[in-house]
């Protein structure tokens, strides 16, 4: 199996496109940091964090008092209130989004890594068919499920690598472009306010967005191996990635929305202030996603191992 994985890895990096994608990712992340720096300098407001925290606190309290918040949204608002009160009482400044710490605390690597991993996942089976190499690949004494597994592992490895490259680039550009502004991230743990390290939170965000990378890439892998067309696989995967939240919005009145994949794909929402559906929690999302993931893999493997190669 290791040798098969080596093969996939060799094929992947023998293509110029892969190097271009990895390079593009580095360039994009640096460019984004540069743009953030520039737009941050335009705002140039020396606003007091205490005033903005105060108004945030009042907003959250009003929402809670109005009673429109339920479930996860209510919980998030309550936590925010607790944290804001703690900040004001103990004089703990929050992180500035446009600071070195803010960048590392919330690295925006996920969507670029997702896009590039989807492109690789879509093509890894489909391209064997379009190049005609599938005939060579499948007449070797290796069972088809092993070949499939090596390809899937190669995708995951590629995804992990991109996330790491992205995170390292983010850290570097954070240090290059932004000054340290201090501030302390806070979270609620066991009912108490605790301090959070920007590093562990950054990695946690990376992990949450990597789940989305896996799900979308597995979907692309499935479409690519069922329809043998990487274009179609890329198109459909990005379609569900971009339209997912719209579909959730349209169907939000129905119970079924809880079980749609779109509702759960972006797990970083649990670390933001807005959850797509009030009845879901992180663990529920993970279960739903796991079910979809297994279904996608079953379809991919079944079609691939049963197919007659006629082309």
């Amino acid at each position, binding site marked *: 199996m290791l040798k098969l994985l080596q093969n996939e890895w*060799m094929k992947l990096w023998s293509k110029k496109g892969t190097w271009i994608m990895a390079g593009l990712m580095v360039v994009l992340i640096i460019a984004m940091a540069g743009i953030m720096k520039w737009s941050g300098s335009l705002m140039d407001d020396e606003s007091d964090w205490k005033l903005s925290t105060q108004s945030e606190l009042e907003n959250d309290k009003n929402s809670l008092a109005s009673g429109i918040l339920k479930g996860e949204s209510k919980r998030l608002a309550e936590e925010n209130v607790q944290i804001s009160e703690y900040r004001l009482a103990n004089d703990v400044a929050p992180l500035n989004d446009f600071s070195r710490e803010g960048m590392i605390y919330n690295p925006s690597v996920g969507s670029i890594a997702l896009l590039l991993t989807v492109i690789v996942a879509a093509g890894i089976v489909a391209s064997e068919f379009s190049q005609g190499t599938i005939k060579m690949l499948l007449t*070797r004494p290796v069972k088809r499920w092993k070949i499939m597994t090596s390809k899937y592992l190669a995708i995951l490895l590629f995804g992990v690598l991109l996330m790491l490259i992205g995170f390292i680039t983010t850290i570097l550009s954070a240090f290059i472009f932004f000054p340290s502004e201090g501030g302390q991230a806070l979270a609620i743990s066991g009912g108490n306010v605790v301090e959070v390290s920007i590093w562990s939170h950054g990695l946690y965000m990376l992990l949450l967005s990597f789940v989305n990378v896996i799900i979308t890439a597995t979907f692309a892998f499935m479409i690519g191996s069922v329809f043998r067309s990487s274009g179609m696989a890329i198109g459909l995967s990005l379609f569900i990635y971009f339209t997912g939240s719209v579909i959730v919005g349209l169907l939000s009145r129905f119970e079924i929305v809880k079980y749609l994949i779109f509702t759960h794909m972006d797990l970083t929402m649990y670390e933001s202030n807005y959850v797509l559906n009030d009845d879901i929690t992180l663990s529920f999302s993970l279960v739903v996603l796991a079910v979809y993931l297994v279904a996608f893999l079953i379809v991919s493997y079944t079609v691939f191992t049963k197919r007659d*190669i006629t082309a």
Partner: protein
Amino acid sequence: MEPTPIVELKNLSKTIRGKKIIDDLSLQLYPGQITGFLGPNGAGKTTTIRMMVGLMKKSGGEVVIDGQTLSADFEEALSKVGVIVENPEMYKFMSGYKNLLHFARMQKGVTKERIDEVVKQVGMQNRIHEKVATYSLGMRQRLGLAQALLHRPKFLILDEPTNGLDPAGIREFREYLRLIAKTENVSVFVSSHMLSEIELMCDRIAVIQNGKLVDLRDMSESQEAHYYVEAFPADQTFELLRSLGFKSESVNEGFVIQAEKTQIPELVKALSTAGLELYAIQPHRKTLEDQFLELTGGGQLAETASK
């Protein structure tokens, strides 16, 4: 004594959407022998070959390779087989060497030294580190052959291997196949629509039509003694030949008869005593093409030639 076959097809069948593509096909292939696989287009050659190498699932019967059943022990059975399916499509964006490395990793026990050895065998050592995209068709064909030989297969299966090769390339390829069949006792199974090619290369031919094996013969056997007789007047000649007990067949202005060499003087005497004017009597060699068309019916000539 018959040697034990290395490959056995036992009642192989394939049904696609209710249509029998391959019907109860049985065939044995022996070590050191090159067997040609002939048939008009759509007869089921490619389907048969793809079932033998695991690209297509069979609907019934068995493929046994060196004692192992393909469906039961896929990896073990296929590890004895080298395959070239049509034009070998390699990864064009990688060098020839990386391609070989790729396929070597999919086999047990292929060392780096073995790769180098095979590269030398097919005469590619000068360009093996260049990208496959820069190779000519002949070189790709040789790379394909190198790939098929990496693991020292006992059985080599080739589907239309000479497609697109120039005459020199074809000749080189053919001689190479003969050589490894002889020296390494490899059994070779070649499908081709180029009859003259098969004729030059093979020891034995199997002919398939409408999914059934219609003929299987040794090439030596297929060269029965035939003579061409041209005498005037033709109708009297025909009568005479018949009265002497020769099976005759009208070809051009004369007849082709089946006869032994020792019968010829007798025949000449008979012709002259009958007062017939003898213009020619000569050995006649039926080409494989003639035999093939006899077997499969001439109607499919156009299709066969155009594949």
